[in-house]
């Protein structure tokens, strides 16, 4: 009976062939490490956020007079409301953590390189959408941090030439962040996750066109691809178990650790808290904004600090295959960059003093210089490695790959 139904569907819709080609039988490099789990985890967190968000929306009220109290209502009166909210709030942090690791893996292993430029750029678009969604969601509890965070970020648009002030009023629907701002942020916070789902489909179509990269950085598809199921379903679900352990520790034992205490005070447009900080995942970019003494310059620098990742396929001019593992200079650069992000995060968290401002300016300089020097460094590294010889593992991989290509083209191994 089941077979008959499937056959009936298959004559009208490519169900079996789709599942076989794109899901169970999707050819996957067999040498993928656990760093390749984070795309799947990002998808999982997306679903988690959509589900918890929809149930929270059933109890939340988007109105300046009601929203703060409706959060308290969710926390105290709604059955398991505390759980839904802590899952959603922790989920936002988890989403960024997973995405940052996903991006770090791409940078380390050079997965952004040809032919995966479009895959990388759709990911860049997803990052922007994620940031926008998280930012708008943070206004909804209508606490002091919500209000002043939204005030500062919408103010960034004042840097728009000529119509800056009008743009800010248009975005807010009021002269300050107010009721109009709250309701539109709620509407868009509900919409954007579905745009993200759409963009994820595009991201996956691009992925399934060029296929997954792998730690060697060489296309091993001729001999080393294995079906996604059961090998990587098993690996992904094992990783999911570890992810859920960490996630649940935060949800159940430290749910407040990632929340600012000041957000437990209702928004007061007449009083700015002495120390306003964004959520941890925006801290490095916020530090770059603050480190430029000129307002427009700061906004431009911050925008560029997010968008500059898109240029990676062209900034990295090396043709040496393999990721940072086989490229000692590039590897050092990746570590410097990661360390610099931590320094920027620290600077973004501390109140501005002369010392932290200077540290922030140095770190912001290093941030951009790692990107801007990359074309020269990568080329110099390529020349040096060509002269000195590759890593023995890479040498073996390249030789094996060349013989495989020769075999496939009908010639024998020389």
């Amino acid at each position, binding site marked *: 009976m089941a077979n008959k139904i499937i056959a009936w569907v298959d004559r009208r819709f490519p169900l079996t062939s789709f599942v076989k080609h794109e899901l169970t039988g999707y050819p996957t490099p067999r040498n993928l490490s656990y760093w390749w789990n984070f795309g799947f985890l990002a998808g999982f967190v997306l679903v988690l956020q959509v589900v918890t968000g929809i149930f929270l929306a059933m109890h939340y009220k988007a109105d300046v007079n009601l929203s703060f109290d409706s959060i308290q209502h969710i926390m105290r009166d709604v059955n398991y409301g505390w759980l839904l909210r802590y899952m959603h709030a922790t989920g936002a942090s988890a989403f960024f953590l997973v995405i940052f690791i996903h991006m770090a893996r791409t940078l380390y292993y050079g997965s952004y390189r040809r032919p995966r430029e479009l895959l990388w750029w759709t990911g860049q678009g997803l990052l922007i959408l994620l940031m926008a969604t998280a930012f708008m969601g943070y206004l909804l509890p209508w606490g002091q941090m919500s209000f*002043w965070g939204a*005030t500062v970020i919408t*103010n960034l648009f004042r840097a728009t030439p000529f119509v800056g002030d009008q743009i800010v009023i248009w975005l807010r*629907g*009021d002269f300050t962040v*107010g009721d109009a701002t709250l309701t539109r942020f709620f509407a868009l916070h509900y919409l954007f996750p579905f745009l993200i789902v759409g963009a994820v489909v595009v991201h996956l179509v691009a992925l399934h066109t060029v296929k997954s990269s792998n730690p060697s950085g060489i296309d091993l598809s001729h001999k080393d691809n294995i079906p996604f199921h059961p090998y990587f379903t098993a690996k992904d679900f094992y990783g999911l178990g570890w992810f859920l352990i960490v996630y649940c520790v935060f949800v159940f034992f430290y749910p407040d650790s990632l929340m600012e205490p000041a957000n437990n005070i209702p928004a007061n447009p*007449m009083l*700015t808290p002495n120390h306003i900080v964004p959520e941890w995942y925006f801290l490095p970019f916020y530090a770059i904004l603050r480190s430029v*003494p000129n*307002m427009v310059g700061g906004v431009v620098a911050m925008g560029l600090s997010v968008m500059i990742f898109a240029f990676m396929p062209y900034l990295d001019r090396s043709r040496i295959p393999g990721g940072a593992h086989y490229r000692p200079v590039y590897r050092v650069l990746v570590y410097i960059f990661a360390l610099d992000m931590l320094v920027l995060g620290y600077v973004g968290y501390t109140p501005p003093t002369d010392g932290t401002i200077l540290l922030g300016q140095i770190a912001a300089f290093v941030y951009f210089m790692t990107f801007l020097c990359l074309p020269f460094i990568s080329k110099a590294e390529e020349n040096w490695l060509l002269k000195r010889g590759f890593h023995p593992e890479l040498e073996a991989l390249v030789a094996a790959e060349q013989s495989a290509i020769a075999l496939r083209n009908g010639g024998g191994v020389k």
Partner: protein
Amino acid sequence: MANDETLAQPGRRDFLTQITAAVGGVGVAAACVPFVASMNPSSDVLAKATTEVDISHIPPDGVHTVPWQGKPVFIFHRTEEQIKQMQASNGVLDPATDKTRVQQPQWLVVVGVCTHMGCVPNKEGPGWVCHCHGSEYDDSGRVIRGPAPKNLEVPPYHFVDDSRIVIGVA
């Protein structure tokens, strides 16, 4: 109906296609106007554009903060000494004489929104300090330390009599 003459002139058909696409594009753009406009401040938001304030109870050296258009407005009752100091200086990053910033020298009326990122500065010692990013303003609301690019905005206002002002109308 297409006859031989029109078929011989494919350029005319291309032109019609382009014109139709252009008109359609203008129509789509026009249809966007109400949606974009709906996000601008509504009439009730615009209606709270003026605020009347009784200033008689503000002591010398005292600041009274009132909401105007949802923004805080500082009404600062300056002492003789403060007035003298402010009239002697000219600001730093956005120079302006004290005269251009007040209607009556003992009353400074400025929008309490930092011109950098929109935080509310605190009254600390002489002038104001914005804790978000460290901008400082003097007792005339002029910026003396960045990153704020401009002086605190002076809203349109007028004195109804000696003890009352209306903010929002010059």
